[in-house]
């Protein structure tokens, strides 16, 4: 099983390298966004715990921040896909 994988990798070395690079790029992008999202929701919980009456106003800002941070992963994805297709 493994040996056949290695043979396949040797035949398609360039493609395999590109696939690893794509996955690594998106993975590292997701790492940063994961930390950022944790920060946003953590701060939101703290803020609502301290001042529950502000929940309505904060929810909009929270989702705005969520989308802005989450988009970072997708920039990585699009960049990776572009590199995968073009190079």
């Amino acid at each position, binding site marked *: 099983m493994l040996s056949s994988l290695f043979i396949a990798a040797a035949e398609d070395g360039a493609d395999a390298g590109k696939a690893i690079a794509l996955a690594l790029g998106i993975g590292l992008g997701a790492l940063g966004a994961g930390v950022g999202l944790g920060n946003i929701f953590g701060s939101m919980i703290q803020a609502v715990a301290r001042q529950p009456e502000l929940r309505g106003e904060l929810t*909009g800002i929270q989702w*705005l921040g969520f*989308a802005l941070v989450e*988009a970072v992963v*997708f920039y990585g994805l*699009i960049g990776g896909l572009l590199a995968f297709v073009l190079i």
Partner: protein
Amino acid sequence: MRKWLLALFALGALVFPALAQAAEDDEFDPAHEWDFKTWVDLPFGLDITKPVAYLILGTIVTCLLGIVLMRVKVGKDPTRRQAVGEMIYEIAQVQVAEQGLPTKAIGRWFPYVATLMLFIWVINMLGFIPLPLSDETVDVGGVQLPTLAIFAATSTLSVTLALALMTFVFTHVEGIRANGAVKYFKSWIPEVPKALLPMIVPLEILGQFMRLISLSVRLYANMLAGHLLILTFIGLIFLTHWAVFPLSIVAGTAFYLFEVVIVVSIQAYIFAALSAIYIGSAIEPDH
């Protein structure tokens, strides 16, 4: 709740014929969903393809939603239908328009951002309902019918870029109209020491164009990644072995629910809210 889950599960299973059809070709590749065939040939590149068909359908559904929920037989004694319409209106007004637009500009730009929100929401939502709009056909009793497939018009860059371009143009037109050209472009220059200006000003100008990219790519990549994930997980059955069936169905349904419940609405809201914020900050540059 359980009924809803079952219904969603059944909807997801309806995508199967399309994928089975795709697997009969030499190679299964979810990216083939984004190779468009021309359905109706028109001059000037105005051909009707799959995304265009979805856009037309989305426009009709958006108009119908607006008319049925907010125009027909509305009165002081609200029915359930009217309550839904008022809820949508309130989200568009309180969460989107008032968050970004200055009070004096709400009358002019509220229709734009509200339409943007409803339109993108409808298009995103249509993307997760299996519809017989597909390039592949299946043989039913001798008739070639299009297979049921999930596809969102917003998962093509041209659609989201066109929407972002509208916001981009409106931002600067409104900025010049409200402030005058000289005052508006001066507001791009921040108050920094003079020596830094040659570095900061190009960055500010670049930043204006980065808004265009970030606005369009955010929506595009979200929908593309969502569809690719669902298609890939269900496609695993055809790629590897039928025994992965339970795993891929559970994972595919989980991603489907995540997309439908969270991503679709959030992206529509974000696009409209950011458009409102950009237009608002062009009208009153100091804030």
